[in-house]
């Protein structure tokens, strides 16, 4: 069976490593991008679209909200599940991200268990994967 793929988009290499570790543990194949533009460029070259993207908000070149908006406007990418992973925790920002097309929102700092629970709610990992 082909493993699911997750795109980890964050300008912090340290945070990418944390997220990559979590999704790899869940048997995703991880692809990294340092900002929204790099992620869009990678997606343009992919024949198979990743099932999941974990997206930081504040990044240079193209921020997470712009990335979500672009993905949602592209029919080829409409099946991607988009999860914002960010320190932006104001209610208004969460509403903006969800309105733009993000499926879920995880606020930093987060525990590994909390992230896995969110992904389980989205049906992307077996329930109880963090137990």
């Amino acid at each position, binding site marked *: 069976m082909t493993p699911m793929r997750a795109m980890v988009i964050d300008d912090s290499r*340290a945070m990418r*490593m*944390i997220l990559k570790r979590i999704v790899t543990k869940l048997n995703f194949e991880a692809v990294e991008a340092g900002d929204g533009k790099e992620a869009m460029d990678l997606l343009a070259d992919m024949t198979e679209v990743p099932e999941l993207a974990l997206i930081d908000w504040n990044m240079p070149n193209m921020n997470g909200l712009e990335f979500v908006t672009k993905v949602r406007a592209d029919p080829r990418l409409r099946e991607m599940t988009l999860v914002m992973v960010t320190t932006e*925790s*104001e209610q208004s920002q969460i509403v903006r991200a969800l309105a733009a097309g993000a499926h879920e929102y995880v606020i930093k*700092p*987060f525990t590994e268990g909390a992230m896995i629970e969110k992904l389980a709610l989205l049906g992307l990992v077996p329930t109880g994967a963090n137990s």
Partner: protein
Amino acid sequence: MSVEVEVNETDLAEMVEQVWESYLDPEGVSPLIQTYDENQPSEVHSSVSITGSWSGHVVFASSRVAAQRAAAAFLAMEAEEVSEEDISDTLGELANIVGGNVKAMLPSGAQLSLPQVMLAPETSTRYPNATRISGVYGIWEGEPVSISMWHSSADNKEEKGE
């Protein structure tokens, strides 16, 4: 426009505790033990700046050994495997996470900068017209770590009508 900052030391301490629980001490065996010594030394530091409805900086400072351990914990590596880049990335992300949570407690209209990292003591960086207004100062596994908030006095001048 300026506003009274509503983030106090208790709020900062809660944010720091969450960071420790999430990344630096998920097992709950080596928490940051507060010393309340705002003059404790540092060898490396990182910061993010906040502008808009409130102006200032959030600074993470520590000894080099603490930064190396933080990077090892953050990146799930052995301390001796940690590179300068790992330390720099980790320090930047720690400042970003605390700064982002501080920003969330400020009135809307505040913006957060990308993190700056200096592998040098906190005292090597000058924050022009800024005053330290609160902080969490502690010892983690025997090494000094602090997270502090600095208020830019550009706001102070406005508050005084200067």
